[in-house]
């Protein structure tokens, strides 16, 4: 279940300010896709997003969800039908995890059993054991766990639309990577329409089906797939922002063996799922790479479903160009598997590695 969102000439002028914070923005957010708003601080990403659920009322213009004008709806009711997750999670500290997640079903008047079944289902979905976590309070959770609960709360009433404002902004890079993997796994299942705000272009490339690069006053500088934006930045501002410029072309000149590879958690295809799970828990990672008896990569498994692997699609070799690696990352999501001369696993190229290489090349070119 998903909905198309359309912004038509939307403008927001805060009282007492000269320039509008959002100036006449029009865009269509297709049903079932993740659209990422990315842009420098203060450019109006949050304002634009919050006009969709009317936490901020547009000064002029229209926003429709599945063709229905949001201004014609009761704002509280509108918001109950739109998932909302923010940085710092914004959990209610006086309520347990279960009560937090069950809040929207409660507001919608679901009965107790349906609500509590749903809470357990949601906690399970975001990788938290309901038995262990349902009765804890937010302060008894790590930052990453709080973010998961925030996402579970946003999803609890099965809204067709999800708004996420830097939901992983306040956690360490490893946890952020895991949460991103988790969100992509969820989205593969749920197919919601997700508007995701970040100022990390790497995160945008990893998560977005489409990326809207925004400039001051939320002006849309480019709105396209990550591949297109990386390959053909619309102008120098976009190129500058994605840290690429002319140097993106240089990715075809660099080989995978020239960058530092990261390590996946690995296991053998014959390993017991429970052992794999324990290994992942210990390493604090979400995914493990399964290798066959000759060390060749076969499939990925997620910590929560160690019995259900998904096959490795595109992989690259040490001789491949970084451009190939980037394409593999974009199709595979998150990281590309690198194999050696006999097809054996040697490491991973992660999106962050590609992005920092691009940045380095650019600095060298500028120097």
């Amino acid at each position: 279940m998903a909905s198309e969102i359309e912004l038509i000439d939307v403008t927001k002028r805060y009282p007492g300010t000269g320039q509008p914070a959002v100036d006449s923005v029009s865009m269509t957010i297709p049903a079932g896709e993740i659209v990422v708003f990315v842009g420098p601080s203060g450019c109006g990403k949050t304002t634009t997003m919050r006009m969709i659920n009317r936490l901020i009322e547009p000064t002029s213009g229209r926003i429709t969800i599945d063709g229905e004008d949001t201004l014609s709806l009761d704002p509280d009711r509108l918001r109950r039908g739109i998932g909302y997750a923010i940085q710092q999670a914004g959990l209610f500290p006086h309520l347990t995890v279960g009560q937090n997640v069950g809040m929207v079903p409660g507001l919608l008047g679901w009965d107790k059993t349906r609500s509590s079944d749903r809470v357990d289902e949601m906690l399970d979905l975001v990788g938290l054991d309901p038995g262990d976590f349902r009765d804890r309070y937010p302060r008894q959770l790590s930052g990453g766990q709080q973010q998961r609960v925030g996402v579970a709360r946003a999803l609890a009433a099965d809204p067709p639309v999800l708004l996420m404002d830097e939901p992983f902004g306040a956690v360490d890079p490893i946890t952020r990577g895991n949460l991103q993997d988790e969100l992509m796994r969820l989205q593969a299942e749920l197919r919601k329409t997700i508007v995701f705000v970040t100022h990390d272009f790497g995160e945008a490339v990893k998560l977005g089906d489409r990326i809207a690069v925004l400039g001051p006053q939320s002006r849309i500088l480019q709105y396209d797939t990550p591949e297109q934006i990386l390959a053909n930045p619309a102008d120098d501002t976009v190129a500058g922002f994605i840290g690429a410029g002319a140097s993106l072309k240089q990715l075809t000149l660099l080989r995978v063996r020239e960058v530092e590879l990261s390590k996946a958690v690995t296991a053998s295809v014959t390993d017991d799922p429970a052992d794999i799970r324990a290994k992942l828990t210990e390493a604090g990672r979400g995914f493990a790479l399964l290798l066959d008896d000759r060390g060749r990569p076969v499939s990925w498994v997620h910590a929560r479903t160690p019995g259900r692997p998904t096959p490795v699609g595109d992989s690259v070799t040490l001789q491949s160009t970084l451009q190939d690696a980037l394409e593999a990352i974009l199709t595979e999501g998150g990281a590309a598997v690198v194999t050696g001369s006999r097809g054996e696993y040697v490491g991973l190229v992660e999106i962050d590695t590609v992005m920092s290489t691009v940045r380095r090349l650019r600095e060298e070119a500028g120097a």
Partner: protein
Amino acid sequence: MTFWDFVADRWNRLVGEALLHVSAVVQCTVLAAAIGVGIGIAVHRSPLGSAVATALTSAILTIPSFALLGLLIPVLGLGAPPTVVALVLYGLLPIVRNTIVGLNGVDTSVRDAARGIGMSRAGVLTRVELRLAWPAILAGVRISTQMLMGIAAIAAYARGPGLGVEIFAGLTRAGSANATNQAIAGTLGIVILALLLDGIFALVGRYTVSRGIRGE
């Protein structure tokens, strides 16, 4: 007569006055809490409103209690009415101030999330903001109660009820038999009652403040 003989002799009367004293203080605190929290809710979003409400309620506290009673008696007569009005007025400041502080202490991200998931304004106030401000509000009410225990004694000046009667009688008869005993009995009674009430507040706190926001 020793002090303890005096207390034993007048036990029934002292207990009666103690009950009246507590009941006056508790009722006035409840009234002050209802009014004070209401004022706090009304003004907490506006810095100017908060400043005015705090200044006005502190100004009340600076009026000596004798003077306030003296001003109220011509208007309201003797007995309960001036006592109640004076106690409620004195009790306002800690409650108003702590309500404002407590509500302003609610994390903006929590308020934002509450609105964002579709709680109505009233829902956000009653189900989130007041719950989170509750420890501060309760602390304010507790301070008011302690203050009013002492101030209530002065109500005897307006022929109000309570242990103040003993203290006043003792002080006006200074030098005569049992005068000191009488004043001490009244004072000690108030101190004991104050400690008891404080214990009850600690218990109320234990059972009404969510474990999620209790500092432990």
